[in-house]
């Protein structure tokens, strides 16, 4: 606590045993109902993934990355695999590229569905929590049909993917998407036009785009300020198939405060993200080429990599997700793997974003950034 705050201030620990603080804690200094200082604490979820990665082979590394964020497992493992593929100089089969992209987008949708249910729970409406989670089950069923696992499926592997699409998977995915599409307008109406939701989220957690970028925010949090910063377009990846689909970067800019973003804008932005992902999946489902899903020769290259450095990046659900990989010659394990989780920045930026808001709004500000403790603790 800064000494100049005065005697009225009270320090309150928000977490780590708080109901809505699962795996994190923030020390709030409160004067009356207003927060004047926020000191987020990390480390309750720390699993030393970067050290662990130094002892795992390149084929095993993706599994560690998946466990950083189980909700977007298909996306989370990709930067590591991308880095490995860059160092080895692998070309992966066309079919694998398209299937990878489809599953990454499906993973993004179900992660966003989970997030918006969680935010609704924090705002006290459990109906809006469980309705999207029912839809989410259909995506999880698809993953289960495809890989046998509902969350961490270890789908991508250096050199391709491990599980092939069957007709049944395709039907299940189409069913999940159909259900989502029929329900989404209803949910949008119920959320974005709900007066109580507007009362809680409008002008809450407001920040400028410039500040947000200086804090390191990325993904939907920055896109909701009106900046189309999206690695899917900006950072063309030869091993993904985003260029096969025709889509625009979803950007929402609220005319009430251009260049700024509040919790409501982030909600709208994430709905647009879902719609974009749905359109990408639907286009790519028609363009799946025939062929092998993995190139065994390329995959064998991942056993021993040459010396090199690579920077694997992907636009995750929550923002820019990267892995920086350095290998030594004929290495079986990485020399150094640095994971950059997108939520590291969003969690840090609470320190600047929260002071001035009320105690009750803290969970809304936090929840609207789509945080996941695994990404900052790693």
């Amino acid at each position, binding site marked *: 606590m800064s000494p100049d705050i005065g005697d009225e201030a009270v320090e309150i620990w928000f977490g780590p045993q708080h109901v809505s603080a699962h795996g994190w804690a923030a020390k709030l200094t409160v004067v009356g109902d207003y927060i004047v200082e926020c000191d987020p604490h990390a*480390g309750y979820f*720390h699993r030393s993934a970067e*050290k662990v990665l130094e002892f795992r082979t390149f084929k095993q590394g993706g599994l560690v990355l998946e466990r950083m964020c189980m909700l977007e497992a298909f996306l989370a493992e990709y930067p590591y695999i991308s880095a490995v593929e860059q160092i080895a100089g692998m070309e992966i089969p066309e079919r694998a590229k398209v299937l990878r992209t489809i599953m990454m987008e499906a993973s993004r949708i179900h992660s966003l569905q989970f997030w918006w249910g969680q935010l609704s729970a924090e705002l006290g409406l459990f109906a809006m929590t469980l309705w999207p989670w029912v839809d989410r089950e259909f995506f999880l069923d698809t993953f289960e049909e495809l890989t046998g696992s509902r969350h961490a499926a270890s789908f991508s592997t250096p050199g391709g993917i491990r599980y092939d699409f069957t007709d049944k998977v395709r039907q299940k995915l189409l069913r999940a998407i159909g259900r989502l599409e029929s329900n989404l307008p209803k949910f949008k109406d119920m959320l974005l036009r709900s007066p109580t939701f507007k009362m809680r989220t409008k002008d809450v957690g407001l920040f400028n785009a410039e500040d947000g970028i200086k804090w390191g925010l990325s993904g939907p949090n920055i896109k909701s300020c009106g900046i189309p910063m999206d690695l899917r377009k900006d950072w063309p990846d030869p091993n993904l198939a985003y260029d096969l689909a025709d889509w625009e970067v979803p950007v929402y800019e609220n005319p009430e405060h251009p260049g700024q973003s509040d919790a409501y804008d982030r909600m709208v932005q994430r709905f647009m993200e879902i719609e974009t992902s749905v359109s990408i999946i639907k286009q790519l489902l028609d363009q799946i080429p025939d062929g092998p899903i993995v190139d065994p020769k390329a995959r064998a290259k991942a056993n021993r990599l040459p010396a090199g450095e690579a920077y694997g990046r992907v636009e995750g659900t929550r923002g820019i997700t990267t892995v920086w990989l350095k290998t030594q010659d004929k290495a079986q394990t990485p020399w150094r793997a*640095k994971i950059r989780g997108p939520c590291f920045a969003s969690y840090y930026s609470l320190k600047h974003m929260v002071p001035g808001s009320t105690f009750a709004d803290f969970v809304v500000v936090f929840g609207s950034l789509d945080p996941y403790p695994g990404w900052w603790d790693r």
Partner: protein
Amino acid sequence: MSDISPSDFAGSLIRSYPTVTIESKSGQSLMISVTPSMIRDVVQFIADNLPMALPESVFGVDLEDDNYELIYIFWSHPARLLCQIRVQLKGETPSIPTVSDIFPGLEWHERETHEMFGIEFEGHPDLRPLLLPDELVGKYPLRKRFKTDRSRLAESGLPIVKPRPRPKKEEGSGK
């Protein structure tokens, strides 16, 4: 916002700071090597000249024998440019000026690098440990000399159990 091409940016950086070496990996990526004393100037240059520079991360790499490399990564969306600034450091606990006042988002990255590699960031506002539990503070676990095998069991205070000797294979039963 002004669009700036990677070569323009690299050119103006070279003109301002002739001692910097720049290597272009691909059309979108620059590798900038600087000395520790110049890091603040270069980062300030990036903050001023690279539009919407997003501080992606700062991290250390242990090159063994008290050699460390520090890598700063910035991404500019309007210029579609990725800048990696690399700094070579040497010493038991090397130190470097902080840049967390220029890019607040790097404050926690520096904090993490400090606790993981023991690199001092001069002028950093808050170098408390971030992720590590109390037992590991000051041990710098991401250094290569931090062993994770059984040799460190004694530190943990747990009872040391010796690994059970493997049973010898009986002849003829291996099939």
